[in-house]
C-alpha cells in the first residue's frame, strides 16, 4: 500500500545555507505525526517544499503514490495545507472563500461539505463576514476549513495553534482527533510539546535542517527520558549505592532511572524494604525532556 506521504532525501538550500538537509521519512496511514523543532529548525521550509511553495533543491515527495511535481494535480488533490500565517482574501466572505477553494479542488457544488465544516468549526454564523471582520481564532478556523473542503487524505498543519487561546487549542486538537478517526493522516508542527505528546502517534525532531530523531512518541520518551521516584519512609533506612539513587535526605529518597526500567526492579536494586515505605510519587519523563535531550545531543 502506498504511504500517505513519502519524503525522500529532501534538501532545500538558499545559496550556501541549507535550510533542510537530506530529510527522509514516511507517514503511516491514519496517524498523527508531529514534526517538532525549535524556531528556525526548518519545519516550515520542509512543509513549504511538500506543498511546492518552495522548490526543493534535491529529493522527492509523493502523496499516496503521486509525485508532487510529476503528478502534481493528483498529489495536490489528496493534500490539505494549513499555513502558519493567516491569509486575508480581501473582498470575499467566509462562505465565498470556501466555495472558491472547493472549486480549486475540482468541486463546484460543495454546499453540504462547506456547511458541515462551518458548523463543525463554529463559523456558520460568521459565514457572511469578510476575513478582516473575524477574530484571530476564527481566522485560524477558516484556514483549517479551507484545507478540508475537499476531504483530503493527508492534512498538513503548520503551527495551527500559534497565538491561539487554550480553549480554542483544545477544540482544534479534538477536531484533529476526529479527523484521524475518519481516516485522515495528519502532519503537524507545534511548539506545545505537552499537546503533541498526548496527540501524536509518532514524532520527528528536526534541528538545523536535519531530522535528528523519529519514532513512536512513547518509544522516544522511554528511550530518552528518566523516571523519577520519590519515596518517603517511616525511618531512615540503609540503602545499596546504585546509579539510580540520586539523593537521600533523612527519610526522603529520590531515585532516577531510565523509563525502560520498572519501579519494582529499581526498588529491589537498592534493597529498600517496602514495609518502611509510607508514600511514593512517580514522575514520568515527558516529550519535552526527550525533545531537549535530542537538541542537547545535537549540540555535542
Amino acid at each position: 500500500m502506498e504511504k500517505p506521504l513519502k519524503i525522500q532525501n529532501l534538501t532545500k538550500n538558499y545559496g550556501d545555507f541549507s535550510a533542510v538537509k537530506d530529510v527522509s521519512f514516511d507517514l503511516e496511514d491514519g496517524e498523527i505525526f508531529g514534526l517538532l523543532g525549535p524556531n528556525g529548525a526548518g519545519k516550515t521550509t520542509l512543509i513549504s517544499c511538500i506543498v511546492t511553495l518552495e522548490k526543493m533543491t534535491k529529493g522527492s515527495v509523493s502523496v499516496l503514490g503521486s509525485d508532487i511535481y510529476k503528478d502534481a494535480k493528483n498529489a495536490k488533490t489528496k493534500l490539505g495545507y494549513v499555513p502558519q500565517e493567516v491569509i486575508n482574501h480581501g473582498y470575499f466572505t467566509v462562505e465565498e472563500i470556501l466555495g472558491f477553494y472547493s472549486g480549486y479542488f475540482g468541486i463546484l457544488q460543495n454546499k453540504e461539505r462547506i456547511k458541515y465544516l462551518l458548523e463543525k468549526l463554529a463559523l456558520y454564523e460568521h459565514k457572511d463576514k469578510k476575513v478582516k471582520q473575524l477574530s484571530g481564532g476564527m481566522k485560524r478556523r477558516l484556514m483549517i476549513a479551507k484545507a478540508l473542503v475537499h476531504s483530503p487524505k493527508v492534512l498538513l498543519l503548520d503551527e495551527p495553534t500559534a497565538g491561539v487561546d487554550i480553549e480554542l487549542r483544545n477544540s482544534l486538537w479534538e477536531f484533529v482527533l476526529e479527523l484521524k478517526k475518519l481516516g485522515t493522516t495528519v502532519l503537524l508542527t507545534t511548539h506545545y510539546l505537552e499537546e503533541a505528546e498526548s496527540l501524536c502517534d509518532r514524532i520527528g525532531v528536526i534541528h538545523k535542517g536535519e531530522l535528528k530523531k523519529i519514532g513512536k512518541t512513547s518509544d522516544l520518551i522511554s528511550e530518552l527520558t528518566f523516571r523519577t521516584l520519590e519515596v518517603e519512609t517511616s525511618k531512615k533506612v540503609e540503602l545499596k549505592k546504585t546509579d539510580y539513587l540520586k539523593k537521600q535526605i533523612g527519610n526522603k529518597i529520590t531515585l532516577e532511572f531510565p523509563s525502560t526500567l520498572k519501579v519494582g526492579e529499581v526498588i529491589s536494586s537498592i534493597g529498600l524494604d517496602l514495609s518502611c515505605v509510607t508514600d511514593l510519587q512517580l514522575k514520568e519523563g515527558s516529550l519535552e525532556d526527550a525533545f531537549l535531550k535530542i537538541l542537547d545531543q545535537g549540540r555535542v
Partner: protein
Amino acid sequence: MFDFSKQNISSHPFIMLFWKEIRRYLKVMVQTVVTPAINSALYLLIFGVSLGNSIDTGFDTPYLAFLISGLIMMSCLNNAFQNTSSSIISGKFSGDLEDLKVVPLSSQQIIWAMCLGGVTRGVMVSLVTMLVGQIFYHVTFGEFLEIHSWPALMFFLFFGALSYAKLGMFVAFLAKTFDQMSAVTAFILQPLAFLGGVFFSLNNLSPFWQKVALFNPVLYLISGVRYSILGQSDVSLTSSVIVTSVSLVLFHFLIAFTLSRSQFKRW
C-alpha cells in the same frame, strides 16, 4: 459537456479561478467599471466636445469619433492590465496568491484563467466607454456612430486585452513592492498609451516624431480598433494584426517563463 456536480480536477479549478477573477472586480464595480466610464466621459467632454472643433486629425470623421475609438482601446488595455496586476499584487500582499500554488492548478491554467478574467473586464469597460461615447456622439450629431467592422473590433479588443492582461501578470509577478508596480504603470504604460494616438493622429506630428511613434506598439493596437470603428487608421490593418499577435505571443512567453521561476510567497 460539463458535469458540474462531480469533482473534476482537469477543468473545474480553471473555471473557478476564472470565475473568482470576475467576481473580484464585480465586487468593486464602482472602482473597476463606473470610474473608468466617468473618466471616459470627462475626456469626451473636455477633448471631444469642447476642444475637438479646433483639432484636425486629417481623418474623414469628426474628432469626437476619432477620440471615442482611441478611448475604447485605452480603457480596454488599462483595465485588462489592472485586473491581473492588482489581483496578483493584492494576492502577494494578503497571501492568497499562495493558495494558487498549493491547489491542483497548472501554471498554464493560472495564466489563462487570470488573463481571461482580465479580458472580460477590459472588454466590459471598453463597451461601457463605447456606450458613453455613443451618447456623446448622438447628443452632438443627432445620430449614433456606425461601427465599420464588428468582427475586427472584437478581434482587437479581445486580443489586445489578452496581451495586456498577460503583461499585467508579468509585471506584477516581477514587482517586489507597490512602488515598482506603480513605476511601471506611470513611467512606461501610461506614456505609451497617451502617446499611442488616443488623442491625436500621426498626421498631427512632425515627420521625426511620426517615425518615433511608429516604434510604439500601443499605436498599432489603438489603430486596429480605430480602423474597426471608422474604417481608417494611422497604420495599416495588417500591421495592427501583426503587432497584436506578436505582443500576445511575446507576453505569453514572458509570463509563462516568469511563472515557472516565480515564488508565490507573500510579501
